[in-house]
């Protein structure tokens, strides 16, 4: 099969699954068969089959394409699917052009492979839910939108995928919409993302506008990339920062990160797929995709790296204090996204993408194993009622530990390799502050990861009754855990550091996309790299040991482990009051001013409406007089009209 056909299968198999499942969802909404326990109704079985088959076909096609790419010369690792023109407006010529190159292929592999495993997991996790077909429809649709996003060659089509994943995220966070708090969380995610999207749109318009004088204005990424080097640096910086504001919304960077922890209201597979592995990394991908622009705007890159470092640190502090198992992992995701942007900011685009790649595996595993724990405890999410689950969950337990260890950066797991690469890149980019913040964050990451492991798995059960009835999940849930665990362990081999005798295979793969000089920092001094690695391992080991020892013993507190810290702990627990600050600074003034303006506007609009209605009814009454009903009057009116017409014809001289 040719490349183009493979690309078509990758894109449209999930779409077809979404359409079929949508039809089944409409049908099941009309014919409601009551669900008994955790069993699948016949319609759910059909939905599960279609829903897993769609992404599975895409996965097989993606891997076929990847294997074929490996056998080719690196300059030939490119395939494009042209589905004609979407619209032409002014100089802009927007076409349905989908492209897979080395970078897009990495994203496609993540979305399809991790996505398929999560779809399979969802079959077990969502069994017995009344909205099962609806859930799979949105999940399939999300996969399609995400694939559009990562394969689009035109920024407008990319934006279409960008909004598509946003809509699916909204629908899936608010999946249990009868709970008002969950529906509100979906709305919050949507609204905060709109703020970022405004920046993205303005950035796109600015880039288009800057190309108009050349007579070939376009939003085609390749044309833009060739064009941006001709831009003045301030203009490029402005466009780069505007685009990054879009990425801040999607990838949850401070201060637009507030939606992600709340997004945990959605079902756990959604958290794993959308809010850990794929959608939230769209911002990272977009920045990496526009790398010529960012390369041309060093100030914007420095801004990205600094904000990433800040986000990584802030989110890690918050993650240390959470007591809801999913919220710990959510804040951890925000923190890891900060790492990715730190890597991009250091100019090491391939390193940032590599952390995205490993993170997709270990964070999806983290969420899915947390989901299996929640599933085992019949929906309990508070760590205060867990503990002592190690002996109960023989598959989920080790998976959870592997995920936490990879997240913490314990060698030789994948998280260690990618995090270490980012720290080394920060050092080589002459950003000692980023390095310091990165190291500190690495310590805290290890702390909260092992705090969570200790609280959930170790020690005696805090809630004996709940833990006694814990049960391991079925194969649809455990198989994805096992496969993702393999990925989380093995993904590190692709970029094993030079100084430890490895090959930077992943960077070499991405070299045709990024500039070779940017693919990895200048490794002038392997000794420095080795010292950095040793330092980060030491910090991680310390953090992990402290996190474990403080929380593994019986009666360990879920709150602040040291009494003097209680005040700060509380501030961290509340996310440093960013939500409250934004509420006071932005939401309340808007609500207040709209409340104040409401009576005035009501009066004005009411007056206008009454004026229109009154005028019309008066005119109607006036005209009704002419309607006497007498044939004579109508004849007179006709005569008068005739006289006027004849007079006009005569006076105008027959012209």
């Amino acid at each position, binding site marked *: 099969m040719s490349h183009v056909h493979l690309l078509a299968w990758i894109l449209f198999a999930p779409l077809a699954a979404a359409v079929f499942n949508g039809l089944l969802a409409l049908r099941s909404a009309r014919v409601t068969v009551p669900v008994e326990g955790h069993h699948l109704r016949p319609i759910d079985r059909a939905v599960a089959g279609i829903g897993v088959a769609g992404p599975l076909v895409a996965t097989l096609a993606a891997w076929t394409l990847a294997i074929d790419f490996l056998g080719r010369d690196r300059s030939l690792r490119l395939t494009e699917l042209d589905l004609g023109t979407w619209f032409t407006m002014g100089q802009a010529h927007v076409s349905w052009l989908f492209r897979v190159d080395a970078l897009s292929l990495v994203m496609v592999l993540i979305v399809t492979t991790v996505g398929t495993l999560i779809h399979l997991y969802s079959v077990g996790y969502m069994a017995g839910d009344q909205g099962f077909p609806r859930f799979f429809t949105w999940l399939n649709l999300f996969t399609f939108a995400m694939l559009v996003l990562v394969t689009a060659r035109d920024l407008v089509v990319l934006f279409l995928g960008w909004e598509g994943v946003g809509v699916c995220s909204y629908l899936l966070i608010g999946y249990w919409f009868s709970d008002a708090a969950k529906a509100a969380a979906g709305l919050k995610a949507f609204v905060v993302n709109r703020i970022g999207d405004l920046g993205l749109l303005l950035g796109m318009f600015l880039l288009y506008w800057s190309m108009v004088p050349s007579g070939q204005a376009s939003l085609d990424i390749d044309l833009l990339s060739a064009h941006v080097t001709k831009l003045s640096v301030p203009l490029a910086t402005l466009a780069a920062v505007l685009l990054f504001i879009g990425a801040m919304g999607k990838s949850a960077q401070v201060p637009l990160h507030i939606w992600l922890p709340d997004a945990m209201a959605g079902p756990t597979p959604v958290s794993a797929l959308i809010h850990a592995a794929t959608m939230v990394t769209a911002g990272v991908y977009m920045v990496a995709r526009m790398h010529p622009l960012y390369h041309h705007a060093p100030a914007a890159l420095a801004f990205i790296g600094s904000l990433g470092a800040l986000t990584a640190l802030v989110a890690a502090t918050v993650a240390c204090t959470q007591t809801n198992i999913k919220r710990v992992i959510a804040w951890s995701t925000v923190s890891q996204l900060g790492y990715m942007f730190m890597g991009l900011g250091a100019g090491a685009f391939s390193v940032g993408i590599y952390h995205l790649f490993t993170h997709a595996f270990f964070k999806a595993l983290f969420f899915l194993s947390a989901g299996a724990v929640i599933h085992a405890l019949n929906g309990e999410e508070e760590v205060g009622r867990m503990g002592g689950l190690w002996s109960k969950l023989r598959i989920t337990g080790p998976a959870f530990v592997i995920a936490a260890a990879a997240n913490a950066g314990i060698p030789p797991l994948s998280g260690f390799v990618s995090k270490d690469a980012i720290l080394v890149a920060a050092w080589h980019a002459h950003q000692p502050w980023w390095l310091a913040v990165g190291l500190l964050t690495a310590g805290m990451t290890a702390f909260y990861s092992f705090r969570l492991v200790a609280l959930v798995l170790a020690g005696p059960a805090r809630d004996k009754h709940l833990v006694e009835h814990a049960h391991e999940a079925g194969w649809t849930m455990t198989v994805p855990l096992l496969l993702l665990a393999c990925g989380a362990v093995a993904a590190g081999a692709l970029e094993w550091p030079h100084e430890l005798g490895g090959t930077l295979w992943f960077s070499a793969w991405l070299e045709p996309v990024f500039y070779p000089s940017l693919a990895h920092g200048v490794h002038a001094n392997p000794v420095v790299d080795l010292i950095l690695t040793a330092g980060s391992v030491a910090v991680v080991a310390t953090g992990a040991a402290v996190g474990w020892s403080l929380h593994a013993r019986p009666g360990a507190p879920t709150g602040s482990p040291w009494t003097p810290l209680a005040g700060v702990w509380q501030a961290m627990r509340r996310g440093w009051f960013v939500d409250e600050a934004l509420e006071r600074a932005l939401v309340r003034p808007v609500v207040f001013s709209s409340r104040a303006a409401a009576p005035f506007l009501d009066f004005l609009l009411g007056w206008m409406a009454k004026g229109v209605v009154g005028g019309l009814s008066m005119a109607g009454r006036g005209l009704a007089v002419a309607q*006497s009903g007498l*044939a004579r009057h109508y004849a007179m009116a006709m005569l008068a009209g005739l006289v006027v017409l004849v007079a006009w014809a005569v006076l105008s001289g027959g012209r």
Partner: protein
Amino acid sequence: MALHAPLLVAAALFSIGVGGFVARRNVFALLMCIELMLNSVNLVFVTFSRQWLALEGHVTVLLVVALAAAEAAVALAIVIMLFRHRETLDVDVFASMKE
């Protein structure tokens, strides 16, 4: 031949017809006024037909006479039905078009 004489007669006939149509209230008077207007037009047709030695005017007049006869037949039938309903020939009573 002078044109003005027959045209003046036609204009006078048409004016009488129009004036009678808007002024009179009796249904039969209205029908007669309509006949007057139709025939004033007929007069104009034959006048110009004669003037330009063209046959079309004569043909049209024959058509109008036939139509007028048919119209009279239908109109008289309607008048009879109206009279049976309302026992009157005053058109101002028939104002139901107002609704």
